[in-house]
């Protein structure tokens, strides 16, 4: 028997699958960075990674102090 819940469930399911496929397609399209990974670029990207880790740790510490 076709119920509203089932129709809705299928619709939502197909929509989510569509989104996952779309994101997967974007990831495949941009899998290889176009820019040449020279030493300068590598250092800059490493700096950004370290910077972001530092900020995440800082936000984590803030969250921890708020909970205390």
């Amino acid at each position: 028997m076709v119920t509203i819940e089932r129709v809705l469930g299928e619709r939502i399911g197909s929509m989510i699958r569509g989104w996952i496929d779309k994101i997967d397609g974007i990831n495949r399209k941009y899998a290889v960075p176009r820019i040449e990974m020279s030493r300068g670029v590598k250092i800059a990207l490493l700096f950004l990674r370290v910077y972001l880790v530092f900020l995440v740790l800082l936000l984590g510490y803030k969250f921890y102090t708020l909970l205390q």
Partner: protein
Amino acid sequence: MDLGSTFFYKYRRFVKTLQIYLLLSGPGLIVMLADNDAGGITTYTVTGAKFGYGLIWFLLLLLPVAYVVQEMTVRLGAVTKRGHAEAIFDAFGSFWGWFSFLDLALVNWLTLITEFIGMTAALMIFHIPPFITVTIVSVIMMLMVLQGRYWTWEKIALLFAALNLIYIPAAFMVHPSVGEVLSVGLIPHFPGGFNATLFFFLMANIGTTIAPWMIFFQQSAVVDKGMKEKDIPWGQMDTLIGSAFTVIIAIFLVIVTGTVLYGSEVESAAQAASILITTNPWLGTFIAIGLFDAGFLGAICISLASSWAFGEVFGWAHSLNLKIREAPWFYACYFFALISAGAVVLIPNAPLVLITLFVQVIAVTLLPAALVFLILLLNNEGIMGKYRNSRLQNVAAIVIVMAIIVLSTLYGITTLFPGLIT
């Protein structure tokens, strides 16, 4: 050639140049005037009230800062014909692409809320309830994009941008001492000595000058406008004029509050307008209108920056030159951002102060990445060809970007841990 002919020739040449400029101007002017958004207006208002004319010299330094960063987006957009979000995905891969895109979506949405906070606070002074403000503003912003032409949207936006100039007559109304403005304002010094509070304000002023959405907005606007490599000099001029205007407006606002509110404990532009409207109704009205306009201009640019980025990343049609049926997802993003951000402001007891502080912290996570990517892209010969950064441009850009990263990071940290500044 006689004198009359020479004059006529020069006049025709000037008119022709002006016509071309008016045709090609827009992205630089709009982004720079929108840079003085609700948050920026509040920062300048409080700066004037706290330090008088003492930091005008510092505001002047922000002109090259804003120009150097934003000029790079003009070249990148005109050469690659891609927005910044797409350019990051393409050049640095999906990890940095998703990071920048999701961070931008979040920080833009939060900033949009702060613009609505500014607009509702400004119109509350005229006893207009927030619900009416949010509804009318959202409808106007939707109508602006529905006509299906980038050119028309840009010219309407420029009209609203021109309203930002209201602080110039406001400054003349308070009759400041020109001598004092020049002697105190233009000589670099630290009013009250270099202390933690002053440092916080310097950071706040830098923080309002360059925001992540500006980089994404201008590059996408350059692409949507259809600017080509040959238009780059006009885009540069547009950005330079816009940078000058943004600094001039900031200075005039500082002169207003530095003259009439110096020494007062003012925490926001809305509060300053409320105080002034009782003593000088016209001045209070001007400040409130300016605050509303700043929020409005910021909101239209920020919501567009997000919609362009969504379109670029997901491959949807994304241009103001398209009708709704031709670019449904692009417009859906724009409308959703506006309506949801406006609705947050209307929630009773919503943590609006917390949101405002959170914006500054989240922006700090994206700004360095966006700026570093900008410099790396502008140095890539394969992408930029002969339009890549020269050595001089690199020195200026790297020094400015390093300064922005350090100061905005410290600003974010002090927002997170206010106890650090005592």
